[in-house]
């Protein structure tokens, strides 16, 4: 994941790079986001953020989301994406109890005394995960609160949000269009 920050306030811009990194980590979106480009001009004030991400297919069963390997007396679940970890743990804990389910790695869970077959059919959530919804939430967490006027452009897997305190001008839209997201 590459983050390009163009800021007239250099230190402020670097702090925003850090804010983006930590929020991506908190929301477990590391594998879904491929690149960011941010332009910050507090003197206007203007904040442009562009995110390129991968939308995911709708998968709810553990067998579709993870590699399930039998082990002696236990089953190892290796999730493909960290984004599913929270739901998977929640479901496994409520189904088999906390004493039988243990997270052994960032995307690994060990379930004791359960057959792989029954795990494959386990549904970890009712509704599908929408990466774009999570990206919206991420962008809202990053953009400074005072920049309340927003203009959103969605082009396939690229989300652009222009945030300011005044009505969005055409020249800002052009500046946003010129901002390049490197994957």
């Amino acid at each position, binding site marked *: 994941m590459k983050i390009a920050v163009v800021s007239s*306030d250099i*230190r*402020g811009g670097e*702090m*925003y790079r*850090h*804010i983006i990194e*930590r*929020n991506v980590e*908190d929301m477990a979106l590391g594998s879904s986001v491929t690149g960011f480009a941010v332009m*910050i001009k*507090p*003197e206007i*004030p203007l904040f442009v953020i562009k995110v390129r991400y991968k939308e995911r297919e709708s998968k709810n069963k553990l067998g579709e989301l993870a590699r399930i390997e039998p082990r002696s007396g236990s089953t190892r679940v290796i999730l493909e994406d960290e984004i599913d970890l929270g739901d998977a743990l929640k479901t496994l804990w409520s189904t088999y109890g906390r004493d039988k389910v243990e997270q052994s790695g960032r995307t690994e869970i060990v379930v004791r005394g359960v057959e792989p077959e029954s795990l494959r059919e386990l549904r970890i959530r009712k509704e599908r995960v929408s990466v774009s919804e999570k990206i919206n939430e991420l962008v809202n*967490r990053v953009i*400074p*609160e*005072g*920049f*309340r006027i927003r203009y959103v452009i969605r082009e396939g897997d690229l989300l652009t949000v222009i945030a300011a*305190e005044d009505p969005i001008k055409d020249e800002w839209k052009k500046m946003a269009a010129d901002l390049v997201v490197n994957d």
Partner: protein
Amino acid sequence: MLKYVIFEGGMYKHELLLEFVDDVGGFVIQKTVIGLDLIMNLAVPEEEVERLQELVQEVKGKLRDAPLIGTEVAVVAPTLSRHHLPHPACDIAENLRRHGAKTNIMGLARGVGQKIVHTSIQERQLIEEHDLAVFTLGNFEHCLRRFKPKLFKDLSIPVIVTGGPLELEVEGANGYVGGIGRYPERARTMDMIERLRKVSELAGKLIEERRREMDLDPLIIEPALVKSEVERQVPEVLDALSPTPVTLKVDGVRIKLPYDEYKEKVASVVVEGKKLNEVSRITRSQMRDYILVKILSESYFS
């Protein structure tokens, strides 16, 4: 003038300290026992600190300066949203508490942006109920320098501002600590903890300056004495669930009981032969429905 210190040591022979503090006209502000360990916030006359130090060495304890004991500090975030809370505000508040302060965290309704930023009268009154305010602001120098001073420049209490830029002159603030802007994680590095310590150090310095100024026209009664008398004569306060039900302030106390129900009882508390309402102003606090007691200075009676 009273000097505020924290004693850290064991329970063994601690009665000697209590006796000493009592004899020299000092106060035990807070006493916390954790197993066999003892932490006490003490206020002793400045000229007696050396003798106290000797006694502390005798009981194998430690004594450190804590000018923030007996103060109530407001840590003010621009809003209550996740952009500004919890990390910077809570880290700063925790560090201030470690230095003896009682802290209250508050979020403004409109402390963000460049055009909408402002504080309401009620917010200003609430902040001014404290002895000092720490404003935890954001990362952009331009915003901090040009737009944020209107949040605090009219406040009558000392103000410390924290923000992202390392060095900055902020109009209307008594001090600025850089490198603590908007950040999304708990302060864990030595560098960050050092910055938090700087905030507490600066707060201590400002409070000490205020106390020295007040010493030129001292309060008619020590707030610590009012606290102990209120606790003795209004025992209901000890049942209040709020933390530190009688909170010490530099120039008074905050009593965490409903104003309408207890104002008469608090007014009739006798301290050094005088009723409390004769030597202080008792008002309703903007914080919930608490009682605020502001002790009058000696010049008021001359």
